C-alpha cells in the first residue's frame, strides 16, 4: 500500500502528461469497444434498446452468403494485394538503394501516395482513371488494345482496387530502404570475391538479411489491408458492386449497421474481423520462426 502511494507520488506528473492520451483511449476506444462487444450479443436497431440474443448474430453470420462473399473478396484483396505491393516496394527500394543521386527527392516523391492514397479524392480519381472513358482506356486504345469497363465489370473491379493498393507502396518502401542500409557491405564484397552473380547476391545475402523487415511490412500491411474501406466505398458508390465483387468486409459491416439498421450484427462482424486478423497475425508469427533470420 505504502509502495503504491510512493509510486503514485513519484509518477503522477507522468500520468498527468499522459492524460490526454489516456482519456482518448478510454472514451474513444476502450469504452466503445466494450459497448460493441456487448452489442454483438444483441439485436439492436439503434432506435429501440438492444435485446440480448446470445450468440445468434455469430450463428447468422456463417449462414449469410453475402458475409461469406465479403470475407472472400477481402481475403483475396489482402493475400493477393499485399504480397504484390511488397514485391513492388522492394523492387523500388533496391533500385533507389544503388546510390543514385537525388535519393532523398525520389524517396519523398514515392512516399507521397502512401500519405493520401486512402483518401476519398484518390478513390474518385481512380474511378475516373479506370472508367469506360478513363485515361487507362484511352491509353489502351492508342496502343490498339481492347478497352474495357474496368471498375464496372465484376471480373476486373477488385483488381483496380488491388492496383490502387500497390500504388501506395511508399511506406513499406521506406522501411525496406532502411533495412537494406543495414546489410553489412562486407558480405557483398565477400560474396563478390566468391564469384556470386547479382541474383545470387540478392537471394543469398540481401533477402535473408532483410527478412525481419519483410516480416514487419507483411504484418503491418496485412492488418491495414483487412480494414480497407474508402477505396471500395467510393469506387463502387457504396454498394460493393458489381455483383459484390468489391464488397469489402468493412463495407458490408457498414451497410449492415447504417443502412440495414442491424448494429448488433455489425458489431459481431467487427469482432469476428478482429479475431480473424489476430489469427492471421498469429499464424504469421508462428511461421516467422522458420523464415525470419535475425542477425547476432
Amino acid at each position, binding site marked *: 500500500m505504502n509502495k503504491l502511494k510512493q509510486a503514485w507520488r513519484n509518477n503522477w506528473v507522468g500520468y498527468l502528461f499522459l492524460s490526454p492520451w489516456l482519456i482518448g*483511449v478510454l*472514451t*474513444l*476506444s476502450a*469504452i*466503445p*469497444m466494450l*459497448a*460493441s462487444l456487448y*452489442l454483438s450479443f444483441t439485436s439492436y*436497431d*439503434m*432506435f*429501440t434498446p438492444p435485446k440480448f440474443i446470445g450468440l445468434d448474430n455469430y450463428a447468422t453470420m456463417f449462414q449469410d452468403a453475402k458475409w461469406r462473399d465479403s470475407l472472400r473478396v477481402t481475403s483475396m484483396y489482402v493475400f493477393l494485394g499485399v504480397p504484390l505491393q511488397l514485391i513492388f516496394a522492394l523492387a523500388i527500394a533496391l533500385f533507389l538503394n544503388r546510390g543514385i543521386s537525388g535519393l532523398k527527392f525520389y524517396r519523398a516523391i514515392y512516399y507521397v501516395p502512401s500519405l493520401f492514397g486512402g483518401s476519398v479524392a484518390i478513390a474518385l480519381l481512380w474511378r475516373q482513371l479506370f*472508367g*469506360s472513358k478513363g485515361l487507362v482506356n484511352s491509353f489502351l486504345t492508342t496502343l490498339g488494345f481492347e478497352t474495357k*469497363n474496368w*471498375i*464496372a*465489370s*465484376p471480373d476486373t473491379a477488385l483488381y483496380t482496387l488491388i492496383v490502387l493498393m500497390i500504388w501506395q507502396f511508399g511506406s513499406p518502401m521506406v522501411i525496406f530502404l532502411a533495412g537494406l542500409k*543495414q546489410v553489412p557491405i562486407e558480405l557483398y564484397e565477400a560474396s563478390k570475391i566468391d564469384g556470386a552473380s547479382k541474383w545470387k547476391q540478392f537471394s543469398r545475402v540481401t533477402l535473408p538479411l532483410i527478412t*525481419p*523487415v519483410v*516480416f*514487419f511490412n507483411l*504484418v*503491418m500491411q496485412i*492488418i*491495414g489491408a483487412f*480494414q480497407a474501406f474508402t477505396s471500395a466505398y467510393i469506387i463502387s*458508390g*457504396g*454498394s460493393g*458492386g*458489381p*455483383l*459484390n465483387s468489391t464488397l469489402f468486409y*468493412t463495407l458490408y*459491416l*457498414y*451497410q449492415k*449497421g*447504417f*443502412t*440495414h*439498421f442491424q*448494429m448488433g450484427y*455489425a*458489431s459481431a462482424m*467487427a*469482432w469476428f*474481423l*478482429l479475431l480473424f*486478423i*489476430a489469427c492471421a*497475425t498469429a499464424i504469421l508469427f508462428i511461421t516467422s520462426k522458420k523464415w525470419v533470420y*535475425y*542477425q*547476432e
Partner: protein
Amino acid sequence: MSKMMKSLMLYALSIIMLVTVAACSSNTPNDAANTTSTPKATNQNDSNQQNDKKDNVEIRFTWWGDTTRNELYNAIVDRFEEEYPHIKVKREFGGWGDYWDRLTTQVAGGNAPDVVSMHQFYVSDYARRGALLDLSQVVDSGSLDLTNFPESAINSGRINDTLYMVPKGVTMPGWAYNTAVFDELGIDYPDMNWTWEDYAAKVTEIYEKSGGSLWGSVDGSGGQPQPNFRYFTRQHGQDLYTADGQIGFTEETLVKWWSMWDELRKKGAIPDAATGTEYENAPLEQNMFVTGLVAITQIPANQIYLYQQQFSEGEIRMVRMPTLTGGQNGEYIEGAYLSITEKSKHPEEAALFIDFFINSERSLELFKVEQGSPASTTMSEFVKPLLEPAQQRAVDFIQEVLPYATDAVYAPLGAAEIQQLFSDQASKIAFGQMSVEEAAKAFMTEAQAILQR
C-alpha cells in the same frame, strides 16, 4: 537489431489493434453521442414556453440537396428568423446519401435535429421505430395549419393512421426526354399515356434509328424498386408490400418485369450491365441522360428544370410512367416531407417553423417548386406566376398525373435489405450470372426470410 525490431513490432502491433477496434466500434451510438456536440437550447423549461413566446429557443433543421438548394433553404430560414426573432434555427445539410447515414446516427445517439426532412423511402424506418412525433398534437394546438391541404396530401404523410410528416412539395415520377434528340432522329415524341409495349418499341426504335450510337433509355430493371417496379406491381393490382408487411407481389410479376428488361438489354436497346453499373450513382450533371448516352430517363417531375439547365438545345418534357394494357393505375403520391423528431424539446416551435415553411408566401416565393409542387392549394396557386417555363411544365405534369394517384402502403421493417436484394438480383441477371427465373425464385425466398425475422 533483432530485439529492437521485435519490440518495435509488438508496440506497433498493439497500436494497430487498438486502432482497428476503434475504427470498427466507432459504429456504436455512444460514440456519436459523445463526439457530436448537442447544442443546448437556451431555454430548458418546456412548460413555460407555450405561454411565454419571448423566451429564446433554438431548434435545428436538416435537409438534403445540392448547393443551390442549400442557398435557397438558408434564405427561407433567415426569413423565418426575422419573423420569429425568439427562435433561432441551426441548419444542417448534406447530399442525399450522406443525409440518411447521418440522420440515422443522430437519431440513434439521441441528438437528432428538431425538424427533419423526410421521404417515403425512409419514413417507415423512423416512424415504425418511434423516432418521429405524432404531428396531430401540433395541428391540434394550432401551431401547424393544414386547412389548405387536400386530404390525399395529408394522408400521404400518415403511417398506420398516425400523421408523421407533412409534404413540402408533392411530385410525381415519369419518363423525361429532350425534344431536340427526338427531332434529330425523326422519331415521334412518346405519348403521355403510353404503355409498356409502346415504351419497349420506342427505345428499340431510338436505338435502331440512331444506328446504335444512342441507347433508348436507362435500365430500370434494378436499383431502387420504386418507382419503376412498384408502378408495375400496382398496375397488376399488387404492390411491393401488403398492409401487414409481407411481399405484396407474385413471383410471376417479377419474372415478367425482369424478362422485359432482359429482352431489351439483349437487343442492345438499353445499356449493358457494366455501363449501367458505372453510371448508377453518377450525379445529375454526369448521368447517362445528360451526357447523351440515353434518350429517355426516369426522373421526378420537380427535377425537370434541373435537367433543362443542362441542355442548351431542346425542351425537356415528361410523360407518365408507362401503363399496363388493361391494368390499373400505378400512381401514388410522392414528395419531400418535413417531420418533427419524437425527442425534440421544442415541438411547438418546430411546428411553427414547418408552418412558416409550407404556408407562408415569404417562404414559398423562394421555394416555388424546389422539391415538388406545394401541397397547399393556396400556395400552389400563389407560386404559379413565379415559375420558369421548365418549372411550369413540372407543375402541369404533376397536376395532370396526380388524379390517378391512389393510396400506397408503407414499407415494413427490413425494406432496406429487400431493396438491396432486389438490386443485387437484377444485376445478376444483367451480368448474365443468373437466369430471370432463378433470380426471381431466389429473390422471393430470401425476401420472405428477411421479413420473417
